[in-house]
C-alpha cells in the first residue's frame, strides 16, 4: 500500500508569488517524515502540493515533478481528484462534516468511490475507527453527529475518515496544534501505529513532536519575508536534532534564529 514519494525541482506559486522554490526530496514508504521550520517558510504549501490541494487555492500552481512510485502526480492526464483519493490528508483543525454522523463521516470517502454493501461499509467503518484508536469511545454513538465529539476525538475521526479509503500516503498538516497535550499524545501514538501501513508526512511547529514521531525530518526556511521558502536539509531525525549539517538548522532547533 505505502508508496515512495520522490519530489524533484518543485516550485509552487500563488499567482505570480513564488512561495517555495526548487524543492527535491525523497520520502520513504512506511516511515514518518516531519517538516519543521518557521511560519511562512512554505512547509504547509509544500505539503499541499503532494496531493494537489495547493491548486484549489485561487492562483495556486505548481512546477516540477512529484513521483508517487512510478507515477508523476503532475503528469499529463492525471486527474487531481484521483490523486487526492490516493493521498489522504488531515488538517490543522479537526473538520468532520458537521451534518454527518460519526459513521457517515468515516464512510464518506468510500461512498464517493462507488457503491458498497451496508455490511462492507460496517466493516470498513469499524476497522478504520479501530485503526484511529477511536472505536471504543464512539461505538455506542455511531449515529450521533461527529461534531459532538471532543476536539481530540474529532481529529482521530478525521484520521479514521482519511484511512478508510486506504490511501497510499497520509499527509498531516499540524494535526495536533488545536489539541490539548493528552489528545496530542493519543494522536502521536496513533501516528506510530499508522506508519506500519502508510507513508506519513507531518507538518509540525512542535519540535519535540517532530523528534518523538518522525524517522526523518526536513527543515524549511526562508531568507526573508517575501522570499520563497526553501528546503534547507532533510536527514535522519536523530541527526537533525543532534548534529545537523547546516548551521541554520541548528540555530532554529536551539532557538537562535532570526
Amino acid at each position, binding site marked *: 500500500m505505502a508508496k515512495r514519494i520522490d519530489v524533484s525541482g518543485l516550485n509552487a506559486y500563488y499567482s505570480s508569488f513564488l512561495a517555495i522554490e526548487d524543492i527535491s526530496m525523497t520520502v520513504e514508504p512506511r516511515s514518518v517524515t516531519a517538516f519543521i521550520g518557521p511560519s511562512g517558510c512554505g512547509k504547509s504549501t509544500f505539503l499541499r502540493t503532494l496531493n494537489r*490541494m495547493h491548486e484549489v487555492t485561487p492562483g495556486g500552481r505548481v512546477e516540477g515533478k512529484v513521483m508517487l512510485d512510478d507515477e508523476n502526480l503532475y503528469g499529463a492526464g492525471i486527474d487531481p481528484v484521483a490523486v487526492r483519493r490516493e493521498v489522504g490528508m488531515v488538517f490543522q483543525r479537526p473538520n468532520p462534516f*458537521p451534518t454527518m454522523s460519526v459513521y457517515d463521516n468515516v464512510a464518506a470517502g468510500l461512498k464517493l468511490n462507488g457503491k458498497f454493501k451496508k455490511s462492507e461499509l460496517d466493516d470498513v467503518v469499524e476497522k478504520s475507527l479501530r485503526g484511529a484508536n477511536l472505536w471504543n469511545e464512539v461505538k455506542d454513538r455511531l449515529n450521533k453527529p461527529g461534531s459532538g465529539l471532543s476536539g481530540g476525538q474529532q481529529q482521530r475521526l478525521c484520521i479514521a*475518515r*482519511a484511512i478508510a479509503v486506504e490511501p497510499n500516503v497520509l499527509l498531516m498538516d499540524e494535526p495536533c496544534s488545536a489539541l490539548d497535550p493528552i489528545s496530542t499524545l493519543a494522536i502521536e501514538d496513533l501516528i506510530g501505529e499508522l506508519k506500519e501501513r502508510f507513508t506519513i508526512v507531518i507538518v509540525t511547529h512542535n519540535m519535540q513532536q517532530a523528534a518523538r514521531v518522525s524517522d526523518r525530518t526536513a527543515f524549511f526556511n526562508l531568507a526573508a519575508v517575501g522570499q520563497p521558502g526553501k528546503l534547507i536539509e532533510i536527514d535522519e531525525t536523530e541527526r537533525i536534532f543532534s548534529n545537523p549539517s547546516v548551521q541554520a538548522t541548528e540555530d532554529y532547533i536551539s532557538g537562535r534564529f532570526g
Partner: protein
Amino acid sequence: MDITTDPQKPAPAPVPHQPPGKDAKRAARGATRPGDRIFLGLSRGSGIFVLVIMAAIAAFLTYRASIAISKNEANFFTTLEWNPTGTPPEFGIAVLAFGTVVSSVIAMAVAVPIAVGIALFITHYAPRKLGGAIGYVIDLLAAVPSIVYGLWGALVLVPHMEGLFGWLDEYLGWTGVFEWNQGAPRSLFTVGILLAIMILPIITNVSREVFRQVPRMHEEAALALGATRWEVIRMSVLPFGRSGVISASMLGLGRALGETMAVAMVLSSSFEINLSLLDTGGGTFAQNIASKFNEATVMGRDALIASGLVLFVITLLVNGAARMIIGRRKEYSGANA
C-alpha cells in the same frame, strides 16, 4: 435564555449583609452611565414598539373579522361563495385558500431549484467577475416593483404561455391537473410562474450569502477525500446551507402568499375551485381583497378583512413550520462545528 445578557438581572451584591435600600440596589447593579441608560431605553422601546404594532394589527383584524363572521350564515372555511352583502350573507375562503396555496406552491417548485442553482453557480462555479456581475443583476431584479412585474406578466408572459400550456396539455393532460381548454392563459399556473420570477431574486440572494459562508475547512475536507466539485457541494456546501436555503425559501413564500398587484393584473379571476390549473379561474387572498375592496360596503370590507386574517395566520404557520424544520436537525447544523 442567556442570563448574562439580561439587563434586568442584578449582579450579586458585593456586600451581602448591607440593609437593602435603594442605594444598595443601585450599587448592586453596578455603576450605570447615562449613555448606557439612554441606549437601553431606546432599544427596549423599539423592541416593545414592534410587539405593540403586531398586537394592534392582530387585534384590528380579529375584531373586524369577528363582526363579519358572526353575521355569516355559511361555513367560513368551506363555502365556495363570496356574497357578504346578500341576504343572508354567505361567504367562505375555500377558493382563496386553494388559489393562494396552489399558486405559491407552483412558484416555490419553480423558483427554489433555480435559485439554488444560480447561487451555487455564483459562489462555486463562475469566475469571480462573472459571479459578481450576475449577483448584481439579481439584486436589480429584486428592486423591480411588483406593478412592473404585473405589467410584464400581463403583456409579455401571458401571450407566451400558450406554447407551454399546449405542451403540458398534450403530455400531462391525462392527469387532469394540466388539462387545458384553450382559454386565455391567465390561470393560476401562469400566476405561479410569474410569482416564481418575482421571488427568485430574494431566494437567490439569501442562498448565495449562505453558500459563501461555508467554512473553507469543510470544503477542503471533502476535496481531500477526492471529491469532485459537485461532490464537494453535495457533502459540505448544501448540508451547511440547508437551513439558510429554507429560510430564504420562506422569505420568498411570504412574498408569494401576499403578492397582490401582479396577481390581480394577470389572473382572470372567478370564485371557483378549478382543479385543472391551466384553465382560468380561482383567486388568491390578496388579489381578492384588492379587486373587491374599493366597491365593498362596510360588511363587504369586514368579510375581506376576515379573509386577510386567514392569510395572516397562514403566513405565521408557514414561518413556524420553517423554524421547526430548521430546529429539528440543529445538532447536525454547521452552527456547532
